[in-house]
């Protein structure tokens, strides 16, 4: 299809563009902190099959679980806050007060309660991104004009039907935006969530490489993380394409 090859070309162009910037910067600075991409790629091919695939798989699982949890809890909460003014009046301050708490500072408590295993990592990702989902979904629904509900109200629709036919589709675009932002956040906080109690995961890999002042491996890890993010973004874009058919221009 023409569309797909178009997309590939533009992704390639973007990759080349970023590589060029990186290369330029590396040549300009001539410091081991900023190695040239070619060296990083060589290292990447060295370590890829051996290490990075496994790390990436762990990270993907944690992101998926954290994001899934955040959606499962955050979406209903956002819907309730967006639709019921009364609920919002009391829940908003709760969210406003808890959102800015640096979740990493709660790590000791989390570890005490949930151990050092997978659970605490997933919970940490969840804690960091659930607020983004809640706020975005709430705002999406709150800005829906009252009139959107009229056809359903006048048909005597139940709450479930109002959700199914109005709230869900109307908030979908904003929800997808929220997922995009939350997903990328989840990828970039791997860095803190995968540093304890594990030897696997891209976050661990990068942090370890950094600690060892092994900038080549660190950049190889960042590169993989970046491609991983791209793939996840691609999945979300495809989902949007299918789910928001009515918005296609």
């Amino acid at each position: 299809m023409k569309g797909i090859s178009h997309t590939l070309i533009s992704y390639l162009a973007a990759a080349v563009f970023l590589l060029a910037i990186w290369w330029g910067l590396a040549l300009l600075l001539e410091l081991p902190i900023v190695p040239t991409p070619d060296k990083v790629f060589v290292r990447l091919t060295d370590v890829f099959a051996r290490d990075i695939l496994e790390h990436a798989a762990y990270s993907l699982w944690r992101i998926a679980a954290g994001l899934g949890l955040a959606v499962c809890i955050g979406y209903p909460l956002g819907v309730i806050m967006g639709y019921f003014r009364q609920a919002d009046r009391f829940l908003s301050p709760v969210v406003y007060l808890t959102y800015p708490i640096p979740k990493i500072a709660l790590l000791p408590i989390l570890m005490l309660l949930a151990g050092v295993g997978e659970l605490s990592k997933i919970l940490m990702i969840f804690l960091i991104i659930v607020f983004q989902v809640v706020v975005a979904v709430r705002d999406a629904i709150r800005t829906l004009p009252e009139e959107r509900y009229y056809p359903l109200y006048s048909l005597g629709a139940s709450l479930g039907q109002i959700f199914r036919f109005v709230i869900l589709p109307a908030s979908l675009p904003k929800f997808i935006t929220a997922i995009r932002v939350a997903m990328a956040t989840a990828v970039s906080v791997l860095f803190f969530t995968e540093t304890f109690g594990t030897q696997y995961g891209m976050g661990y890999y990068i942090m370890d490489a950094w600690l060892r002042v092994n900038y080549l491996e660190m950049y190889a890890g960042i590169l993989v993380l970046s491609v991983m993010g791209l793939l996840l973004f691609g999945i979300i874009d495809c989902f949007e394409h299918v789910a928001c058919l009515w918005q296609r221009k």
Partner: protein
Amino acid sequence: MKWHMNPTDMIAFDHLTVRYRSAECAAAAAIADVSLTVPQGTVCAIIGPSGCGKSTLLRAVAGLVQPESGCVKIAGGKADPKKYRIGFMPQNYGLLPWQTVRENIVLGCRIRHDWHAGREEDEARLARLMAALHIEGLATRYPHELSGGQQQRVSLARSFLLQPDILLMDEPFSALDAITREEMQDVFLALWQEQHVTTLLVTHYVEEALYLGQKIALMAADPGRIARVFDNPLGGHPEQRGSREFFEMSRALREEIRGISAQHAGEGAAS
């Protein structure tokens, strides 16, 4: 004057006053102290100047605006869209942009849990209706891909397919050309003659009111109120359409409306 409810009245407005909360200030009442009854199985046409509160009246029946005082009763009880099937066709059609034409049409039935996709009789009824409304080829389009008149007919189709207890139609034929309009009026009349749905119909056309409404309510503005209600013997009788009586009646009615309007203009100037 105490207001009495007739047991056969399907819709009854009882000293209804509605005021919109505006962003800044307390707006004037959109409709003030309106009392009107529509007997079971009749069509009541509402005519009135723009902004006099016709749409507000329909919204009140559909439970979309809360009265400031007074109330709306359906069959003697509180107007509750969960209890009665209300086919409400708003002025802006009320189509859901994320649903296709087909989904939009069956929406009412789905909400009321009596749509079974694929069941032959349901599908046949849908196909018949869409054909009658000349929207048979548009089933998979989204509303924003339709012309104005096509959107209006989709909205009509939704209300008709629902087989409602009460039909509320806000200028249902306004975006249609004369020929299509007459066809649609006949589709409505056929439906009505089958099921005798109690109907409130807002229209700007005296002929339409006379043709469809057994009862005609004239409204006046500032504040929105009922100026006069009268029975129309010609309403619902297609065969009368070309008659001399029809012509005379429409002329008389037009004069009356002009009178109300002039009187109001005079009041406005005086105040």
